[in-house]
């Protein structure tokens, strides 16, 4: 079986590793700091240099990469009702590893159309209506979109009864239109899998090229997935296991970066406790959320702003100011850890479901919306800020349910784990090719931390 050279490019650290599938070993791994502005190939070269010892001795059968370069996969989501098809569309984008840069509901107006034109999106997901349901809004939206000057791929995953009309309207407008099954075929039922596959295919077939990741020159054909998609594949495998080997069960993971914070939750079952009513769409068992305003570098300031009311710390204020102005020459690990802890806390709170208590004439009633994660124990930390922290457990503990917010359904206890060697995103690239081997590699490399 082959030996692979794997890369994760485009974020603050460029990561690479060499994996020998036969021996189930990671022969080498390295990372290199890359600023957002530097050429991606510089980071790749730096990582290769660091693995040169091994690289010069082995034969690489295949090189594969995942990428979040140039802002990652930027999508616009369009739906009908905010809590229904728009929510379904957004969850589909997230689970495909995309960032939702704009989201619209109901009939698009000229102002919104203009915003979409200017958004610089890589792909637009158009939804609306259950199968056999509302047609008017999605048809209106398609004809509005068809008149845009800037062309980008459009994926339609709305009311199936309009598929042919939508295809006709958008192709006539010069758009590259792909059709897939409805993300909400019947009321309240979410079906993201096929949509997710189609987004990945489009990423591979057109978006990588369209994004002009040309500085990657020789590597461009190796980019097969958006980075978060790859992370998701790795976490799914680690959680559910394979036919021949069991996974570690339900888990959560938080991936903190310079600009964004991603949270993942993988569950076998959708938990709704006894005597609790459920409201709205049932979210995916394998869910990803991404927070575009939470990160320790490009968003340090916005993180601080969210916390400013609670913290009274001039040091932090000055620190984020310096980061914002780019005046900093040496980053402070302790302060970065505080920022990371805030990112973890806020992002996990946004990811988790809510329990609403309603006081009715009939007494107290409970309604849940979103995922109940109170029984999840495994909490995996991914990404530089957690990895480089002196106390990663403390950061991850911010994902616990807080006394002041029992309505936010986060874990009651956690066991902290760490992606110590930066390999989760790379290993996800092989999750489908070599599931058993990759599962064991993941189990060995995702390290359990002791409480300090």
């Amino acid at each position, binding site marked *: 079986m082959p030996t692979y050279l794997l890369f994760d490019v485009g974020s603050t650290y460029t990561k690479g590793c060499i994996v020998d599938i036969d021996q189930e070993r990671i022969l080498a791994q390295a990372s290199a700091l890359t600023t957002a502005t530097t050429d991606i190939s510089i980071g790749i070269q730096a990582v290769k240099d660091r693995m040169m010892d091994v690289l010069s001795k082995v034969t690489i059968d295949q090189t594969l990469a995942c990428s979040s370069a140039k802002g990652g996969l930027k999508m616009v989501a369009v739906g*009908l*009702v905010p*809590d*229904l*098809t728009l929510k379904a569309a957004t969850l589909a984008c997230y689970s495909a590893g995309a960032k939702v840069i704009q989201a619209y509901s109901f009939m698009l107006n000229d102002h919104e159309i203009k915003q979409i034109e200017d958004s610089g999106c890589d792909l637009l997901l158009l939804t*609306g*209506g*259950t199968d*056999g*349901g*509302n*047609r008017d809004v999605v048809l209106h939206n398609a004809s509005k979109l068809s008149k845009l000057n800037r062309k980008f791929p459009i994926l339609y995953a709305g009311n199936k*009864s309009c598929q042919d009309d939508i295809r006709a309207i958008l192709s006539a407008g010069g758009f590259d239109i792909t059709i897939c099954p409805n993300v*909400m075929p*019947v*009321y*309240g039922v979410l079906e993201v899998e096929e949509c997710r596959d189609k987004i990945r295919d489009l990423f591979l077939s057109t978006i990588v090229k369209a994004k002009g990741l040309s500085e990657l020159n020789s590597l461009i054909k190796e980019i097969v997935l958006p980075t978060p998609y790859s992370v998701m594949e790795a976490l799914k495998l680690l959680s559910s296991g394979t036919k021949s080997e069991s996974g570690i069960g339900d888990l959560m993971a938080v991936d903190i970066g310079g600009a964004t914070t991603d949270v993942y939750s993988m569950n076998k079952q959708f938990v709704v406790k006894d005597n609790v*009513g459920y*409201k*709205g769409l049932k979210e995916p068992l394998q869910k990803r959320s991404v927070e575009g305003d939470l990160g320790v570098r490009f968003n340090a300031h916005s993180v601080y702003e969210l916390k400013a009311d609670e913290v009274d710390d001039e040091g932090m204020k000055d620190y984020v100011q310096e980061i914002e102005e780019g005046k900093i020459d040496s980053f402070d690990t302790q302060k970065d850890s505080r920022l990371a802890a805030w990112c973890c806390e806020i992002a996990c709170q946004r990811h988790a479901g809510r329990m609403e208590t*309603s006081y*009715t*004439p*009939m007494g107290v*009633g409970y*309604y849940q919306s979103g995922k109940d994660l109170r029984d999840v124990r495994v909490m995996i930390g991914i990404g530089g800020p957690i990895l480089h922290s002196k106390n990663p457990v403390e950061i991850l503990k911010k994902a616990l349910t807080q006394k002041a917010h029992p309505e936010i359904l986060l874990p009651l206890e956690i066991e902290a784990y760490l992606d110590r060697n930066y390999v989760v995103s790379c290993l996800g690239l092989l999750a489908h090719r070599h599931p058993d081997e990759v599962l064991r590699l993941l189990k060995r490399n995702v390290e359990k931390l002791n409480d300090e």
Partner: protein
Amino acid sequence: MEKTTIVIGVIGADVHAVGNRIIEYAMNQAGFNVVNLGVMVSQKEFVDAAIETNAKAIIVSSLYGHGELDCRGLGDACKEAGLDVLLYVGGNLVVGKSDFEVVEEKFKKMGFDRVYPPGSDIEQGIRDLMADLKNKA
């Protein structure tokens, strides 16, 4: 021909589930595409579901006696959302045995097209619905 979609559910904090099941069954038998929101349904859920599914009618049940409080504003919410639906309500709308004409009047003012007294047969509701839909078409 595509089936006509209708949305049904028990409004408010009401958990009486048996009648709701019977209504779902009867409406399906009568040839409708039924979107059943179940029990403890909020006004927003009725409206959202009707928009996405392009429903032609919303059939609200209230069994526990707090129907008036729960239903207030639903008619306006439908109008606000641009929905053109028939709005029916039935069950035990108010506590105890009040004069039904008064109750009916109140609910009609709230925007309901038809209001049914306790113990009404759902088959009557279905006959009325078919006639009303035909009249609208």
